């Protein structure tokens, strides 16, 4: 009984890690990785632990979902409109390198939702990357964004609910190993999107309601801050 409980308990890794080290932890089964010199005393670790008890029903401090401006993405073409509008909305005073980073991450998250999140009944990908699909009436992709003074919060929700933890484990492992198979030649994409997003973001969170919806959200710092090694990854599977 105790063994079964332990097996079900999502593993949290805490300590001071590099991103490749965090990827190894994730490959080892950790659904939550908190890199911080506070270790187990990091309030975020405690929040994650209590959040697990709530099925992930809580917000981290950087999550500004309530203040987010939401837009629907109806088609692949919409990606560019959403990106352009958001980056334009950041204003001309926001520096170019930061805009490039935010633009890259937001595009990858939306593309992931379109080309990986929405699938056929049998789990196969629906669309090739060069296709410009329109979503079916039963499908949706909702993009939430908040531009705060110290960073940007991005949230992409799709109606697929297909992003499994094992898929993320495999993707991070493949990408961080940087071997000959780092890039996939699949029609739906190169398999680098989540890796690129995790590399650029300070906090990445994935909530999956299997078969119902997936929410991928992240926080990107506007400028360099002390404790560059502080970051987190969280995967919550919810019912």
């Amino acid at each position, binding site marked *: 009984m105790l063994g079964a409980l332990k097996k079900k308990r999502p593993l949290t890794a805490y300590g001071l890690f590099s991103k490749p080290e965090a990827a190894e932890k994730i490959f080892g089964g950790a659904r939550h990785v908190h890199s911080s010199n506070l270790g187990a005393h990091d309030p975020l670790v405690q929040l994650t632990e209590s959040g697990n008890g709530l099925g992930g029903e809580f917000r981290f401090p950087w999550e500004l979902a309530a203040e987010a401006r939401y837009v629907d993405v109806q088609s692949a073409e919409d990606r560019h409109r959403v990106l352009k509008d958001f980056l334009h909305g950041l204003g001309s005073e926001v520096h*170019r390198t930061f805009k490039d980073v935010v633009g*890259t991450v937001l595009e990858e998250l939306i593309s992931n939702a379109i080309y990986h999140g929405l699938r056929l009944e049998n789990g196969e990908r629906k669309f090739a*990357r060069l296709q410009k699909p329109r979503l079916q009436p039963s499908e949706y992709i909702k993009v939430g964004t908040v531009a705060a003074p110290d960073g940007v919060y991005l949230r992409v929700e799709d109606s697929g609910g297909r992003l499994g933890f094992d898929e993320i484990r495999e993707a991070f492992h493949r990408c961080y190993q940087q071997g000959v198979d*780092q*890039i996939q030649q699949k029609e739906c994409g190169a398999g680098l999107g989540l890796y690129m997003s995790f590399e650029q973001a300070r906090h990445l969170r994935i909530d999956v309601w299997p078969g119902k919806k997936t929410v991928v959200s992240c926080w990107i710092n506007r400028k360099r801050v002390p404790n560059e090694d502080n970051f987190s990854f969280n995967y919550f599977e919810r019912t």
Partner: protein
Amino acid sequence: MAAKFQIRTTEENGTVVYYVSGPIDEESRFSEIEQAHERLIVDFRGVLTINSCGVRNWVNCMKKIRGLEISFRQCPPAIVKQLNLVPSFRANAKVLSVYVPYLCFQCDHESRLLVEMEDLAKGKEIPAVRKCELCGQDEMEIDGDESQFKMYG
């Protein structure tokens, strides 16, 4: 109007230089570069963004010209990021120069400094702090990890 991906070609001292500009994405094709048969330089200064499928297209291009003497120059931060994340993006190419972004902690002004790898190999350092041309304070610091811009060797 959004900038379009394009490749412009010139010749400098007997070497073909390919100027890549605009966003690199799933629709970007590098057929001009893939047809190269001698040493070449790729100038990335005009690249605005690159997504994961753009990275793949570029890597596939690099596979086709494997064996040629390839150099990259004027790599903006978006390209430098990929050089660090995806080893096959560079493959056997030599990086000649990169743009290092600086951010002023006083007034938030951004500027970029072109750094020649040859100079770094000779012992010259990437300045950790620069004077801001806007507010005049010595508050401009490298926006990112300095080590990622050292591409020599």
